[in-house]
């Protein structure tokens, strides 16, 4: 029996395993099944500012990452908003999101309902663009380096502090510097059939490897990991990822979001987890479970030490090759570190597997 003493704080002993799972060359992947809407018009920045949770700059179009919430403050979609220019020279926004069938309404219909008399035109251009992600190249360190600055709210909400430096999301058409986490790389839109310019300096890999890269950084994305109409923005790390503007005026879903920020409590977070067979935290790739698991499985705590059984359950949102993203109470993560509880998920074969969460390397620490 191992008699290791686990230190509280980021579980740095798990990080080498995470790093070993990905090739360390600059990689680029085409992401399937993402949809794109073009939003153009003289009142487009004002329109998006009233509807999205982000403080959309009104002076000139700039790209950013944000989310659209419903009136009850639940997330509908997380979105990348790129800038682009029409052939006639006028600017437009390109909104990229996950359009898999879900509980959420069609984003196109939803935005059309909000246009009313505003001078905004919305078109579905999913057939014209492909979505790509690139990471691992050297030049990323020119703009994406630790340590990052953060603002901590008493409720547990955390937001990035961009007050120094340039616009964090970049300034190029159809390219976004992915600042959702440190080390994510770039996101791009390329015309369908074309390869983006970065493809010449990156090795093309499958989108599953991008999913692994994303999960290892603790970044949830899409309707499978951020469930439309039920996920809370802070539970899905949208505040840490820079999607929410806490100092802007009214937008859809603002009431609950700002109230939670100031006087609520953020008790759950989306964290990366390892899924393994024995109750010892895994140290090598071979300890990880390689079977494919269905999404949205419940995670149950089992008490080791002498304390009352924690109530509720977590959710394993998605997983690939023994690594996954889970929505867990933050006190459970520290309880696992201190070896007070273990977390388990039931597989299809009814055999319980162990789940060990860890805070990503870049996660803000007060």
């Amino acid at each position, binding site marked *: 029996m191992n008699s290791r003493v686990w230190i509280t704080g980021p579980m740095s002993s798990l990080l080498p395993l995470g790093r070993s799972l990905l090739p360390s060359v600059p990689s680029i992947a085409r992401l399937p099944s993402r949809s794109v809407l073009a939003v153009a018009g003289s009142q487009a920045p004002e329109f998006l500012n009233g509807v999205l949770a982000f403080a959309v700059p009104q002076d000139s179009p700039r790209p950013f990452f944000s989310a659209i919430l419903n009136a009850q403050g639940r997330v509908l979609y997380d979105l990348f908003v790129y800038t682009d220019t029409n052939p006639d020279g006028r600017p437009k926004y390109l909104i990229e999101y996950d359009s898999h069938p879900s509980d959420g309404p069609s984003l196109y219909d939803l935005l059309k309902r909000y246009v009313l008399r*505003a001078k905004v035109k919305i078109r579905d251009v999913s057939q014209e663009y492909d979505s790509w992600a690139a990471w691992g190249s050297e030049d990323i360190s020119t703009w994406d380096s630790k340590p990052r600055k953060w603002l901590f709210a008493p409720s547990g909400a955390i937001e990035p502090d961009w007050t120094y430096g340039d616009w964090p999301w970049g300034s190029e058409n159809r390219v976004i510097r992915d600042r959702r986490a440190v080390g994510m790389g770039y996101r791009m839109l390329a015309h369908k059939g074309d390869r983006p310019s970065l493809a010449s300096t990156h090795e093309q890999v499958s989108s599953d490897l991008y999913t692994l890269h994303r999960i290892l950084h603790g970044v949830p994305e899409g309707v499978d990991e951020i469930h439309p109409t039920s996920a809370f923005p802070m539970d899905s790390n949208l505040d840490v990822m820079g999607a929410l503007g806490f100092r802007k005026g009214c937008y859809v879903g603002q009431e609950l979001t700002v109230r939670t920020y100031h006087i609520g409590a953020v008790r759950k977070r989306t964290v990366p987890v390892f899924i393994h067979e024995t109750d010892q935290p895994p140290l090598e790739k071979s300890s990880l479970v390689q079977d494919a698991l269905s999404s949205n499985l419940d995670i149950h705590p089992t008490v080791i030490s002498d304390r009352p059984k924690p109530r509720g359950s977590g959710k394993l949102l998605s997983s690939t090759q023994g690594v996954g993203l889970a929505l867990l109470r933050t006190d459970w993560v520290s309880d696992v570190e201190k070896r007070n509880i273990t977390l388990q998920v039931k597989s299809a074969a009814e055999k319980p597997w162990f789940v060990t969460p860890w805070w990503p390397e870049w996660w803000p620490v007060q």
Partner: protein
Amino acid sequence: MASRVLAQAFRSTCRRRAFLSLSTRAYSVSQPMRSAFAQHLPSAPTTVLSMPNPKYLEQEEIDVELIPQDEAKVLITDRAAEQLRTMSEREKDPNAALRIAVESGGCHGYQYKMELAKNRSEDDYVFSHPTIKPSNIVVDAVSLSLLNGSTIDFATELIGSSFRVSDNPHAQGNGCGCGVSWELKI
């Protein structure tokens, strides 16, 4: 419990005659003031003074289904009509009107924008109280599709007096905390 204590106190302290006279005492009754309860505000369906021009809607590419005159239903309370008439007399302008529009935004998705109408457009409906005139309300065609059936009221509260849009059949739930924004009923 309290009444039993009171009754005991009466019996022990008052003499029987005094007790009897209390029960037959005439209490002063004042005429109840005619105050308007929220549910029973005197109001009336407005008359439509003017309709939008369909050709103009087409020309301006305004994408809305035009609500016909017999279906355009906006109610107005008497006190709102009175306020509009007072404003119109003060401005010495019988064409003074309140413009009510629906905009997107606000914490629940839609919000009302109310202002004094500076000019009329060809895509506007113009409503008025049937008897208290002039009390013009101007609503553009797109906004009417989202507030048809509502009641326009003028309420005076501690926070101030303002025109309000209430009982909008297109709005669901309670709306936002400050009453400005509302969600569309699908």
